């Protein structure tokens, strides 16, 4: 049983502010992903939770107890390093047993626990091998098993899947999630891959430039991004963001995109209200590729006219790249589309749309 609270957490390296005044609370047994591009401060944040780095300001508490100044060995956290940090001069058994041996656990108990963990991690056959003989995939499981065996209440993982090949990464995503259910631990997971975060986490904390951008469930951040950074970062292929301007006055506002046309949201659409609130300003209009539909050219006034530039066929789906008036957009279709490149088409939003302030990038309601 362990919750984590970060309050005003700040880390400076000289002039660089790696983490800026971050507040975050992670509930007991929750799986939270720290997500962001490289250099966003996610790894620094996790290192401060583990005690590998000490914060310049602010506090880290576990279960309400301030542990900001507790040394890293005494916090009882399990940590899986990106490069696994396996003790390659030892056998697989010795690696798994390490945490138990240093705490003076009786030999019989160690054997029992190592056997169980090896079974769980599918490493039984390899127990007597020197660790350097393992494949990357096995090293990865060993790294998780070595930390899990001491039953830490809090489990931290630093991009554990980034060295794996694509097929195995997909498999491990599912496996990690099962593991978390099984171990019943609070898990914090650092990644730059939004797909990993979306598919595994209960909640995602998205960071950029050391600042927490948004914190919420995968579906929340996907459906309602707080700013254009989150909008762009979550979802693949990424959200289309079009530079546009809101023209017209009360009751008859519309979004103008220059050469490719304009959109007039109808009254029930939340977009109408948003346009109302941001009259006569420059905005970023956001719409996900899967919320756009290809239509025959020039069929109704809700259609932006563009040209097909390229089609990617990925299994059952197609990603249709279109272009017009300097805007480039992507449309995802659930069919294997076969439109000729260069064909003029219309595109129309069919689902959720988003509006962001062009200057601040903040969401406009």
């Amino acid at each position, binding site marked *: 049983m362990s919750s984590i609270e970060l309050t005003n957490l700040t880390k400076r390296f000289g002039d660089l502010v790696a983490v800026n005044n971050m507040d975050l609370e992670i509930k007991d047994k929750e799986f939270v992903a720290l997500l962001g591009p490289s250099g966003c401060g996610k790894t620094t944040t996790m290192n401060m939770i583990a005690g590998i780095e000490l914060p310049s300001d602010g506090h880290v508490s576990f279960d309400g107890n301030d542990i900001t100044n507790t040394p890293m060995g005494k916090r009882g956290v399990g940590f899986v390093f990106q490069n696994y940090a396996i*003790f390659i001069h030892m056998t697989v058994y010795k690696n798994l047993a390490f945490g138990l041996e240093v705490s003076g656990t009786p030999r019989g108990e160690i054997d029992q626990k190592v056997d169980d963990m090896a079974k769980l991690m599918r490493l039984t056959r390899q127990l007597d091998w020197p660790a350097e003989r393992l494949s990357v995939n096995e090293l990865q499981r060993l790294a998780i098993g070595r930390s899990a065996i001491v039953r830490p209440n809090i489990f931290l993982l630093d991009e554990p899947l980034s060295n794996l090949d694509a097929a195995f990464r997909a498999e491990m995503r599912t496996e990690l999630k099962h593991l978390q259910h099984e171990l019943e631990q609070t898990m914090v997971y650092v990644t730059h891959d939004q797909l990993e975060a979306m598919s595994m986490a209960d909640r995602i904390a998205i960071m950029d430039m050391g600042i927490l951008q948004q914190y919420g469930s995968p579906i929340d951040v996907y459906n309602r991004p707080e700013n254009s950074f989150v909008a762009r970062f979550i979802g693949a292929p990424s959200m289309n963001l079009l530079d546009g301007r809101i023209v017209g006055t009360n009751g008859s506002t519309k979004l103008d995109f220059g050469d490719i046309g304009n959109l007039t949201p109808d009254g029930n659409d939340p977009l109408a209200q948003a346009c109302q609130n941001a009259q006569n300003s420059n905005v970023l209009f956001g719409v996900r590729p899967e919320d756009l539909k290809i239509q025959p050219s020039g069929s109704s006034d809700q259609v932006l006219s563009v040209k097909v530039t390229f089609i990617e066929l990925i299994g059952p789906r197609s990603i249709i790249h279109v272009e017009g008036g300097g805007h480039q957009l992507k449309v995802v279709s659930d069919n294997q589309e076969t439109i000729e490149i260069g064909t003029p088409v219309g595109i129309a939003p069919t689902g959720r749309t988003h509006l962001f302030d062009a200057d601040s990038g903040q969401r406009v309601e």
Partner: protein
Amino acid sequence: MASNPQTLTLAQQGAKLGRWMTLPTQLLLVFIFAFPGLMIIYVSLSWWGPLEGVPWYYAYESLNWFENYIYLFEDERLWGSIWRTLLIMLVVVPVEFFLGLGLAILFVDNFTGKRVFYSILLMPMMIVPAVAGYMFYILFQSNGPVNQLLSLITGFEIDILWLSETDNAFVAIMIADIWQWTPLMFLILLAGLLGVPEDQLKAATLLGANWGQKFLRIALPKMRIVMIIALVIRAVEAFKLFDVMYVMTKGGPGVATETISVYVYKVTFMELEWSYVSAIGFAILMFLTALGAIGIIILSNAQKKRLANVVD
């Protein structure tokens, strides 16, 4: 495939070219090593000396085959010097090793003034050994600074004859050697310690290991090779110990602190027994080569065992 000369792979072509390009170096090495080696063997089989009045290649005129080598076994002064050399080696090398290791461990973490201490620590190594010898020669005079300091601390009149009593002279020489060569040990071991992957140490800490467990289980196994190298380098160097002690005691009092190098020096330049010296030199070379070969066999066996584990 071998029938077609065009089908050499890039790697094979590279290897072929490589052999040609290293040929001059190999020839040079053969010359540097083979010529003096053969000359020493040749001279050691005769009575030839610089006072004979004939060049060395006329040594066959006084050929005596293995008499120099037989004498070598009866030469008590030689065996005494070998024993003393080993004694010094057995004391200074472990002391330097543990001092160096302790210092290296201190220097892994950051502390204020680390750079200054670092420079100071490395200084002895940079000093010409003969100069260091003179320094200690002056320090260990019976009215020198060491005795004065000891008197000051204890309050008694201390008057130890550091350099003219056998046991004291040994201690003085060892102190000088330790002072001068601990830094090298420190440097090599520090490099070894810094080579221990930091992530593994962190991982061990996070798994609850204390300082000693981390050192014994993670750092030590990774440093084994570096430690062996450091020990071998220092053991060989100690075996050749000459300058510092020659300046301090000249092997005296009498022959009480004479090491192999000092003995060989004396035979060469005072007694001018060059053919005998050649025999000693060659015998020592053979002895050290045998030692080295044993070491290499042990190391490569360990390596093979490890690889066998990995490959099978």
